[in-house]
């Protein structure tokens, strides 16, 4: 039957045309298209890969930063604690020292005052003694200007001595 009998002419032209088409399209269309597609896919894949890499790097950096920050914070806390302690000790020491010093000053002042007072008292005593002697001398001089009086005094004195 006509329909299922392949005709020579069409067989020939189909073979020639299809092979030419295959050659031309293969060389000038499919080759550049396929390589462009492959290239683009590779580019996209690489871009995705590097993005992933960057993301990971970022995460690593962030965790590093956090770690560093934590360390710094801890260090700062430790330093502050230590400084506080030192300051406390210094203040305590100073306080103690000041107290001791003031005590010593007060003590020595007191001693000085006592000594001065003693000296003053001694001086006064001495002056009184001298004055008394002077007064007594003056009184005596006046009283003993006459003889009876002298005698009376001597008697008196002798009496006193006995009594004492």
């Amino acid at each position: 039957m006509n329909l299922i009998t392949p005709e020579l002419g069409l067989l020939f032209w189909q073979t020639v045309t299809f092979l030419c088409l295959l050659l031309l399209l293969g060389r000038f269309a499919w080759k550049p298209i396929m390589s462009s597609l492959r290239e683009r896919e590779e580019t996209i894949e690489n871009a995705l890969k590097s993005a992933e890499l960057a993301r990971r790097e970022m995460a690593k950096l962030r965790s590093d930063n956090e770690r560093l920050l934590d360390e710094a914070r801890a260090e700062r806390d430790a330093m502050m604690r230590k400084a506080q302690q030192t300051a406390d000790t210094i203040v305590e020491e100073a306080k103690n020292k000041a107290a001791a010093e003031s005590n010593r000053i007060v003590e020595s002042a007191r001693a000085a005052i006592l000594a001065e007072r003693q000296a003053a008292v001694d001086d006064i005593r001495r002056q009184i003694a001298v004055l008394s002697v002077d007064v007594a001398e003056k009184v005596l001089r006046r009283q003993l200007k006459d003889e009876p009086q002298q005698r009376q005094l001597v008697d008196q004195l002798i009496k006193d001595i006995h009594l004492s």
Partner: protein
Amino acid sequence: MDAGHSSKIKNLLFFLLLALIPLKSFADENPTAEYQEGEFKAGDMILHHVGDSHEWHFATIGHTHLTLPLPVILYSPERGLDVFSSSRFHNETQTYGDYRLDEHDHIVSLSGAKFYDFSITRNVASLFLSALLLIIIFFSVAGAYKKNNGRAPRGLQSFFEPIILFVRDDIAKPNIGSKYQRYMPYLLTVFFFIWFNNLLGLMPGGANLTGNIAVTLVLALITLLIVLFSSNKYYWQHIFATPGVPVWLLPIMIPVELIGIITKPFSLMVRLFANITAGHIIILSLFSLIFIAKSIAVGPVIVAFALFMNILELLVAILQAYVFTMLSALYIGSAVEEHEHHGDLGIEHDSVHPDHH
């Protein structure tokens, strides 16, 4: 073909014009017969359409036939090459020199001399047209890849890119495996060739190229040759010493497997030819019903049916391109497949590769 028969067909052509169905007709012939009631032969009309012709008839408007005469190229060992226009046959006897155009549109030699017909028939012209179209389109697409390098695809390029990727990722890669790249040019060419020609065949006045057995024969033969030339030892081992088959069965198995080599491309050939031709025959039969019933009332119903069939054929056009390409890839895949773990049963299961994404 006698004059009475011709006039009947001519009469029909006037009606067929409404549906833009191309049909063989003969110009300058008894115009008075134009409006006579004629007997409609649906079978002849359909076979004329799905078959080949030495001229390309587009439409008939009134008495004017829009026909493109095509070159006739004949080669005979005695007379050498003969090239002339097919319009030379347009006379009472349908003869030119020693050659006559018979009622089946075949050229016969009156003297019985042996000759070969390499004419540019409607199918050949359509073949050239489709080849030109494919070249123009895909060269421009390839150019677009150069121009838009590093940028998103645009225009034609963005229309064809998903289809090209589909052929690569869903046809070639899963069926052929890692060696798919060598076969991409063939698979892409055959896919687009079949698809474009299927669509061109659906156009009003289009030729039934992919529904021609010679065309599908050549395509199937190329697939067969590619399979045979890329086959490795495992392919032949599978044919001559099928693993898991007892030795006493081999005398039966070897012929079966050898026949299998031929039946695979044969099925490719028949499937494409039959599907496309059947589609054309169905649509033409539907339109013929209008003229058989001779009633305007059936028209709308038939047009609705034909429209539905045409849309279905649009689907079939790409489906058959896919099936042909997919099966070609499958056969190539079975020929290039490496068996790392052969020896026991389960070779058959390996013949369909898992996806290599």
